[in-house]
C-alpha cells in the first residue's frame, strides 16, 4: 500500500514534531507547515491526502486555512481534521462549521489517531471511486445520446417522406426518449387512397429504432407501389417477427382511407380502444383491437382481417397509443379511457375534439413527469377534391432514375386467376421520377388496359352488360366463372421507356390471347358512353378516359393488341 500523505500545520514546533513522529512510525508520509498560510501554499504544491490543522495559528488560523483548502480541493474530497485542546462544545462545533471534517484532541492518542487517519483515507478513496464511476456514466450517457440522435436522424430520413401535413390529418407526438417508441406514418397510394400507421414499440430508444426503420421502409415502399394495408400489415408483421427478439413487439393500428368510395379499412393489434366519430349524430363508435401486436406471430398464424366502415365527409377516426391513457397527473392518477371519452363528449363541435383532448390532457398532466410516449391522431374523411395528391407526398426514392429500359411480362392462366400484376408493373414505372409525378393517371391507364385485356380479351365478357344494375351483377358473376375455367390463355404486357431526365416517353403494349374485336366501333361506342356517363354510372371509365391521359392510343392486329404512349411531364389537355 502506498503511504498516506499527510499535511500537518501547527505553530508549536514540539507538538508538530510529536505528531509527525507518530504518523511516520505508522508508515505515513508527513509534510509540515508552521501556520495556515504555509499550509495552503504547501497544499497547492503537494496535494496531500489528508490535512491536520491546529486551530490557533499566527498569520492565518486553522479555520481560514480549512476554508481555502476545501475551496482549492473543489470536487475532490480532502479530509481536514482540526487539532485542538479545546473541550468547549461550541468551539468544536464551530471548527466543523468552517469546513473541517473532524477534530483530534491533544494530547494525541496514537490508536485513535491511526484509526481516524485510516477511516478518512477510506472515505477519500470511496469518494474517488464514486467520482470515477460518475464520470464513466456521464461519458457513456453522452455516447448513448449521440447514438440515439444518429438513429433518430436516420429514422427521420426514412419516416418523414409522408403526408402527415395533409389537411385532413391532425396529430400530436411527444417523445419520451430521444428516439420515440411511437411511430406515425402516412402516405398516399397511386390511386389516391391514404395509408396511415400508428405504432407503439415495446421500449424506447434503440430497441424501438431497430424495428421502426424497416417498418417505415416497408410502409412507404409498398404504399407507393399501390399495395393496400392488408398486404402491407402482413409484410410488416413478417419482418417484425423475424428481426425483433422474443418479447419485443409493436402494437399498431393501420388505416386505409378511400376518399372516392368514402370507406375506411382498419387493422388493430394491441392498441387500446379508439373511436370513430360520426358527425351526423355526434356519436362515438368504439374501435377495438382484434389482433395480437405485430411481431408476435409468424406469417402462418398471423391474421390480416380488417374492420371495414363507411365514413361521410366530416366523420373522423380518433386514434392513440396507450401513452395517453397512462399519462399521469402530479398525484399519480392515470388519465384513463373515461377522461378521454369525457373530453371528446365535452367538445363544442367536431372541429374542437382534437384541440379539446390536447388541452384536457395538458391540464391533467400539469407538467408532471411522463411515463410513456403520447401519440394522438385524428383523420377526417373528406371529399376527393379537398385532398388532391401532392406529388411530393407520394413516397419518393431518388434522383434521375432509370431512363432507358424495357420490360416484358407474360401471365398465364394460373397467374391471371390469382394475381394482380399492376402493383409490380406500377413499381417499375415509379422508379422513374417523371412518371411518379403522374402515378394516379398511370394507374388509371394500366388498370383500364389490363381490365380490357382480361375481361374482354381473355374472359370474352360483353361490356354492354354493365349498362344496367342487374347486368352489372351478372357481369361480375360471369367474370368469376370464366376466370375459373381458364386453360391456356395469356396476357403479355410490354413496356419501354426512353428519356433524358427532363422529359420522357413510356410505351405500353397489352397483347392478349383473345379474339380481338372491332375496335373502331368500340371507340365510337365508348365516346357515346362518356356522354351518358351521368346516366350510366356503371361503366364509362373506358378508353376515352385513357386516351385523355395518353399521347396516343392505338389498336393493332385483330384488336387483341393495344399500345398506349405516354409523355412526361404530363400536360393537362382541356
Amino acid at each position, binding site marked *: 500500500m502506498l503511504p498516506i500523505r499527510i499535511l500537518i500545520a501547527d505553530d508549536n514546533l514540539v507538538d508538530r514534531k510529536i505528531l509527525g513522529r507518530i504518523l511516520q512510525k505508522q508508515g505515513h508520509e508527513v509534510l509540515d507547515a508552521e501556520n495556515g498560510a504555509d499550509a495552503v501554499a504547501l497544499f497547492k504544491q503537494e496535494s496531500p491526502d489528508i490535512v491536520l490543522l491546529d486551530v490557533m495559528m499566527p498569520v492565518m488560523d486553522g479555520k481560514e486555512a480549512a476554508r481555502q483548502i476545501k475551496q482549492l480541493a473543489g470536487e475532490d474530497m480532502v479530509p481536514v481534521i482540526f487539532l485542538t485542546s479545546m473541550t468547549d462544545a461550541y468551539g468544536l462545533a464551530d471548527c466543523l462549521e468552517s469546513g473541517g471534517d473532524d477534530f483530534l484532541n491533544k494530547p494525541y492518542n496514537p490508536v485513535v489517531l491511526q484509526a481516524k487517519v485510516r477511516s478518512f483515507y477510506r472515505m477519500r478513496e470511496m469518494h474517488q471511486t464514486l467520482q470515477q464511476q460518475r464520470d464513466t456514466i456521464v461519458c457513456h450517457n453522452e455516447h448513448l445520446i449521440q447514438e440515439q440522435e444518429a438513429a433518430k436522424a436516420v429514422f427521420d430520413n426514412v419516416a418523414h417522406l409522408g403526408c402527415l401535413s395533409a389537411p385532413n390529418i391532425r396529430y400530436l407526438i411527444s417523445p419520451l426518449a430521444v428516439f420515440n417508441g411511437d411511430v406515425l406514418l402516412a402516405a398516399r397510394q397511386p390511386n389516391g387512397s391514404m395509408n396511415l400507421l400508428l405504432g*407503439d414499440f*415495446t*421500449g424506447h430508444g434503440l430497441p424501438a429504432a431497430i424495428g421502426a426503420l424497416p417498418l417505415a421502409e416497408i410502409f412507404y415502399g409498398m404504399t407507393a407501389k399501390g399495395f393496400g394495408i392488408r398486404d402491407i400489415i402482413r409484410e410488416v408483421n413478417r419482418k417484425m417477427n423475424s428481426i425483433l427478439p*422474443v*418479447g*419485443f*413487439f409493436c*402494437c399498431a393500428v393501420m388505416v386505409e382511407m378511400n376518399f372516392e368510395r368514402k370507406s375506411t379499412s382498419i387493422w388493430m*393489434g*394491441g*392498441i*387500446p*380502444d379508439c373511436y370513430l366519430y360520426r358527425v351526423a349524430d355526434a356519436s362515438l363508435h368504439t374501435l377495438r*383491437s*382484434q*389482433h*395480437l*401486436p405485430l411481431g*408476435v406471430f409468424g406469417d402462418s*398464424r398471423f391474421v390480416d382481417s380488417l374492420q371495414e366502415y363507411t365514413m361521410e365527409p366530416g366523420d373522423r377516426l380518433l386514434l392513440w397509443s*396507450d401513452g395517453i391513457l397512462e399519462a399521469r397527473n402530479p398525484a399519480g392518477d392515470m388519465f384513463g379511457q373515461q377522461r378521454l371519452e369525457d373530453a371528446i363528449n365535452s367538445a363544442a363541435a367536431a372541429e374542437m375534439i382534437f384541440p379539446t383532448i390536447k388541452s384536457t390532457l395538458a391540464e391533467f398532466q400539469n407538467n408532471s413527469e411522463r411515463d410513456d410516449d403520447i401519440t394522438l391522431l385524428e383523420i377526417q374523411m373528406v371529399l376527393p377534391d379537398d385532398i388532391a395528391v401532392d406529388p411530393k407526398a407520394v413516397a419518393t426514392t431518388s434522383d434521375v432514375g432509370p431512363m432507358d429500359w424495357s420490360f416484358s411480362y407474360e401471365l398465364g392462366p394460373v397467374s391471371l386467376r390469382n394475381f394482380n400484376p399492376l402493383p409490380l408493373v406500377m413499381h417499375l414505372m415509379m422508379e422513374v421520377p417523371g412518371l411518379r409525378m403522374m402515378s394516379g393517371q398511370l394507374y388509371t391507364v394500366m388498370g383500364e388496359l389490363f381490365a380490357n385485356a382480361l375481361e374482354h380479351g381473355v374472359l370474352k365478357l360483353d361490356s354492354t352488360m354493365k349498362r344496367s344494375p342487374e347486368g352489372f351483377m351478372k357481369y361480375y358473376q360471369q367474370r368469376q366463372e370464366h376466370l375459373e375455367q381458364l386453360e391456356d390463355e395469356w396476357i403479355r404486357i410490354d413496356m419501354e421507356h426512353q428519356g433524358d431526365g427532363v422529359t420522357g416517353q413510356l410505351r405500353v403494349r397489352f397483347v392478349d390471347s383473345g379474339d380481338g374485336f372491332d375496335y373502331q366501333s368500340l371507340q365510337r361506342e365508348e365516346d357515346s358512353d362518356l356522354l351518358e356517363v351521368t346516366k350510366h354510372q356503371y361503366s364509362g371509365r373506358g378508353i376515352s378516359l385513357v386516351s385523355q391521359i395518353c399521347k396516343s392510343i392505338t389498336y393493332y392486329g385483330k384488336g387483341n393488341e393495344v399500345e398506349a404512349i405516354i409523355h412526361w411531364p404530363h400536360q393537362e389537355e382541356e
Partner: protein
Amino acid sequence: MTVETLVSADGKELTIKVFGRFDFSVHQAFRDAYDAHQPAALRYVLDLAGTSYLDSSALGMLLLLRDHAGGDAADISIVNCNQDVKKILTISNFEQLFTIR
C-alpha cells in the same frame, strides 16, 4: 420477494406468482423463476392475484416465458387477474396465446 414459485407434487407444474407492479423491475426475478426450475415444467400457471399493474415490458416477459415453455406448444394459464390487468391482456389479445382464467 416480488416473484415466488411453487412446484406441484409431481414436479410437472410450475406456479409463478408476481406481487405488486409487474414491470421491467422484476425482469430478472421473473426469468430466474422459470429458468431455475430443472427439468423444465410441462405446465405453467401464472398467478397474478397479487399483481396490481402490468405494463408492456411485462407482456414481453410473458412472451419470453411462452418461448421458454415451447412456443406454440406452450401450456400456460394466467389466473386471478384483477380488472386492470385483465384489460391490458385483452387489449393485446393475449388470450390467443395464453389460457386466461
